[in-house]
């Protein structure tokens, strides 16, 4: 098959008819939308640099209830404890954090992007119990819930499109 034919077909995705069902960007109100309960600190992040190995994750510790504006290295520089279920490409960004849980509860991990989240303990990836998007017109993009027992966990971030990410771990009310 000739490339020219393939590229012509790619134009299918841009149909000429002005009938495309495209959602116009909704205007955001002057007053920012309210953040979900428990995530009020999202608006006041502290800087942090993600680790590139599990051994160094303690240097990138996420305090529960505190938001962070985290720097991420390029994916090729990261050695994950477990291969992410959805690995990022060579041009993406990722990193590893640690979180210490003292109280058994369900926790929300909130991100400013749609990056992939793995929570790892004892060499296993934990299953999330819920996921959703943040409120419109906020920088909170993704929320995933994990029931966690006391102990240290690794939070692996993969397939992020830029070298920074907003991240927060909060107990679900």
């Amino acid at each position, binding site marked *: 098959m000739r490339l020219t034919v393939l590229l012509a077909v790619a134009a299918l995705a841009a*149909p000429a008819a002005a009938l495309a069902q495209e959602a116009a960007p909704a205007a955001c109100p002057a007053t920012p939308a309210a953040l979900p309960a428990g995530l009020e600190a999202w608006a006041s992040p502290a800087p942090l640099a993600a680790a590139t190995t599990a051994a160094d994750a303690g240097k990138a510790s996420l305090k529960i209830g505190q938001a962070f504006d985290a720097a991420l290295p390029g994916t090729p520089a990261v050695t994950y404890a477990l291969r992410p279920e959805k690995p990022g490409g060579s041009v993406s960004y990722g990193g590893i954090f640690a979180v210490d849980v003292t109280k058994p509860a369900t926790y929300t991990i909130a991100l400013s992007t749609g990056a992939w989240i793995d929570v790892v303990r004892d060499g296993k990836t934990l299953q999330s119990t819920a996921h959703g998007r943040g409120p419109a017109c906020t920088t909170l993009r993704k929320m995933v819930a994990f029931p966690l027992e006391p102990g240290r966990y690794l939070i692996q971030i993969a397939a992020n499109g830029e070298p920074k990410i907003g991240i927060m771990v909060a107990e679900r009310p």
Partner: protein
Amino acid sequence: MRWAAPLIAAAAAVLCLAAAAPQPFDWRLPEGIAPPPVPADNPMSAAKVELGRRLFYDADLSVNGTMSCATCHEQRHAFTDTNQTRPGVHGDPGRRNIQALAGVGYYRTITWADPRAASLEQQMLIPILGLKPVEMGMAGQEAELARRLANDVCYRQMFAQAFPETGGQIDMVAVGKALAAFQRTLLAFDTPYDRGPAALPAAAQYGEALFRSARLNCSSCHAGPHFTDADRPGAYHRLPGAPAADPGLAEVTGRPEDQSRFRTPGLRNVAETGPYLHDGSARTLEAAIQAHYAANDPAAPTKAETADLVEFLKALTDKGFLADPRFALPQTACGRPL
């Protein structure tokens, strides 16, 4: 076998094509099932399928490395996901529900409502290069994609093995052929339904009878071994009870009679592929069934009949397919961990 008779023509076509193949490909199909048709210029090979599988899971096929084919087509959900629609790499809202992939190699109508994407080799360009909406965002970045792949010594080996006729050239044509070859192997024929009526609970048997009844006649469109007429060109339909905001086929043809016409999704693994309809607006199988009927249509199935239909649809799940390691994220390539 339930499906042997309808596939004679397809089998004949494949036999013709197979003559051009350098080596027979082991489809691992049950007896009586013909493999999907294969384009003469893209014969199947194990090396090509292996390459296609790696590419399918590689987020370097998106502009910022965040999205692979598998980002939306998740194996555990029969290669779709649980979202109504999904935004692209830049946050553009998705337009239509992600489609499942089991049996997609048999289809002649591959997208929801665009007959111009007539092959899997062509279809893959829509998510990778498409602009309305931008999904993977690689329009104008074809050379960059080739550069990324060629930067990996293992990929160079895999392309060379998969495409000896071009010396392993890495370009969009080869990427499309490899992805298509992998997708043709996504076959799900090990379901309770395939084991025969005795394998079905009574409710599912009632449901199948309703499904094929003259009154409901679901099988007129959800036909054949894949429960779709998408293996016939030009088969697009409008559902009386479905949302009509999307122009569907009319967007391409410009014909008013094609307004809100869409292809018929196959039903294998359908219980795992919700939400349903072209816009993902039906959260459950019951809601999807109801969308096939206008309000107060006396022919619509009753609540009890709908429940039986759902039991039948659940019997179309190939659980092995959802976890088959042949289709999963590869953990190694060229003998090394990824």
